[in-house]
């Protein structure tokens, strides 16, 4: 009758795996979807930093119940930041309908791509789980369909020379070393060494035709991106978008998407008719992220600066940059 109500979804919804109250929860939260009146309670028993047991209760539709059942299977043994990253991936899955092997049976919710009005049903258990982990007592899907934490909005500002050390640290944390593996932008398997250095960042911040855009909240800088004006094809003015980094723990929460949108807005304001960027060509996941936001591969490549350790120490010899372009 409908691909959303697949055999898998119906099975999980009927089985109500992980349904019921936990004996001695360490974390709990109540979630509500004001749109339909559904309410769900999530209780957790955490063992140190990891979820040892997950339980849910409440009355909800088949989509929410199946999601909660599947979620209980997925989160056992995982820590908060890992779960935050998975939440972002789940959100992408229901929006784009793309596959994500790491999400297991939750891939059944890909069908929600064609049911935007029902996405909140599947987001409700996630939002409630995230609230419980964050120590908040309640969660709502209202006005918050992307599950971004409304209690911590961020703001934009241009970087100043004083921000350089923090920017360098942010860029490194997003791409290099084990810390970056928390997020999905990591290049740890491709490159060692540094991604950039203080001198390089200071040079970019000081450029007169450039701008380093920062997104920050009360906890500090969440994301950065470099916006420059360059010559486009046929004498057009183009924007160049680079040095894009989001704090690994915040990835998948919509911060990056907002930074990209703000950068495009700024570029348009400067009269740019397109935005350009370069991406390491083997990073399919990253390229797909840009493609979902209107960027197209051009098949035009730039060599990777092998031998220049300012850009890192490659672990493989087939790296090159591909130019991506989006008309503004």
């Amino acid at each position, binding site marked *: 009758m409908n691909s959303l109500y697949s055999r898998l979804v119906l099975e999980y919804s009927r089985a109500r795996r992980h349904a019921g109250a936990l004996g001695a929860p360490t974390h709990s939260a109540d979630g509500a979807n004001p749109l339909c009146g*559904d309410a769900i309670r999530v209780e957790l028993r955490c063992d140190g930093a990891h979820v040892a047991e997950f339980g849910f209760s409440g009355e909800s539709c*088949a*989509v929410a119940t199946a999601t909660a059942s599947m979620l209980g299977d997925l989160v056992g043994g995982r820590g908060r930041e890992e779960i935050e990253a998975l939440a972002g991936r789940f959100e992408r899955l229901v929006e784009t309908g793309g596959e994500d092997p790491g999400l297991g049976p939750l891939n059944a919710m890909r069908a929600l791509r064609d049911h935007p009005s029902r996405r909140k049903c599947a987001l409700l258990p996630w939002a409630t789980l995230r609230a419980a982990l964050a120590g908040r007592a309640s969660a709502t899907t209202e006005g918050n369909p992307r599950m971004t934490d409304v209690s911590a909005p961020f703001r934009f500002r241009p970087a100043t020379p004083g921000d350089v050390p923090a920017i360098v640290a942010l860029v490194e944390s997003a791409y290099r070393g084990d810390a970056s593996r928390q997020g999905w932008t990591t290049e740890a398997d491709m490159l060692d060494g540094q991604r950039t250095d203080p001198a390089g960042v200071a040079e970019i911040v000081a450029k007169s035709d450039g701008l380093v855009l920062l997104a920050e909240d009360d906890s500090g800088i969440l994301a950065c991106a470099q916006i420059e004006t360059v010559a486009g094809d046929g004498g057009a003015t183009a924007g160049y978008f680079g040095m894009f980094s989001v704090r690994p723990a915040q990835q998948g929460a919509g911060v990056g998407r907002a930074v990209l949108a703000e950068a495009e807005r700024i570029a348009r304001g400067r009269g740019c008719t397109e935005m350009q960027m370069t991406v390491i060509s083997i990073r399919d996941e990253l390229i797909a992220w840009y493609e979902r936001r209107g960027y197209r591969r051009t098949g035009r490549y730039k060599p990777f600066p092998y031998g220049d350790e300012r850009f890192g120490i490659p672990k493989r010899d087939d790296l090159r940059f591909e130019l991506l372009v989006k008309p503004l």
Partner: protein
Amino acid sequence: MTSARDAFDVARIRADFPILSRRVHGKPLVYLDSANTSQKPQAVIDAVDRFYRETNANVARAVHALGEAATSAYESARDKLARFVNATTRDEVVFTSGTTQAINTVAYSYVLPRLSPGDEILVTRMEHHANIVPWQLVAARTGAKVVPAPITPSGELIVEEFVARLNPRVKIAGVTHVSNVLGTINPIRELAKACRARGIPLLVDGSQAAPHLRVDVQALGCDFYALTGHKLFGPTGTGILWARREHLAAMPPFFGGGEMIRTVSFDGTTFADAPHKFEAGTPNIAGFVGLGAAIDYVNEVGLDTIGAVERDLLAYATEALKSVPGLRLFGEAKEKAAVLSFLIDGVHAHDLATLLDQEGIAVRSGHHCAHPLMQFFGVPATARASLAFYNTRDEVDALVAAIAKVRKLLA
């Protein structure tokens, strides 16, 4: 009545509504969500289209030919609506964006200045949020409170309980003419009589009544009557507040701006008379021209015919739904419009609505902007099929067949 129904040619009526011939998910559309918004006949679509093609200009300002024609088309809609609700004069008809704006106008212009701490606003348990929240907002500013009158499990207002709550602290009563969830038709005349005897003004939310039954504000004896155009086969963003002339004269403007003034200076501004005093800014001109066409259309079909056809459909649909195992019907008032709220054991309303949609059947699911009523029944949501005179018994059969399919899948 029977003869009106027998003479009724539903195929001809359906041909007047272009959207009814479209398909959804490859199936013929079965539109059972008219209480949410009604579909629009070609006559309304044409009136809006023609206005923009041939007449478009601003109203009450321009002296050129188009301005005169636009003003005349717009104001003739007021005449039609005045007759439609049987107002004493056309000046009692204030154009609003819908029922919500109409009720807010009364809440802020009429009620707020009269409220003191401890005062009460009496409503019923079955009200739409539009007839609860505006009252709560003005009550919160003044220390007054909103009091609900109870209903029976079958969804009827308990009139004695309502009357018992009409004490001297009550500054206004607000009651829906027809419940959007239950279909219950409230005994407005009786309630108005009780209010009037105690000097308490009564506002009636007519959103769900106007499309289905004859509204006569003088016979009803209420003080304010609000209705919305988009449920009455007209465009969205249209509606009226009807109010007794003396109330409108005593009320200060709600919004300020152009069109509602007589003279403006920085020493002070004098306001136009009602209804223009309440119509600041350029209105939804084409929308009201379309609403005028909708009134013409309804009059042409005839409210008696509409009422008879819908009563027949309601009886048929009620029987049909009751035959579905595990189906619980909400609202079984003796006087009822063609609205059927229901739940099926083991099936969530949202799952039901999504699956019915796959069969081309549009129903609403959710709380229907009536949280207090959902709390009364102890459910978070219901599914609701709401019928109009363009619906058919075949469509009811399609609904029942699709429900059986859903039950097999989910229950």
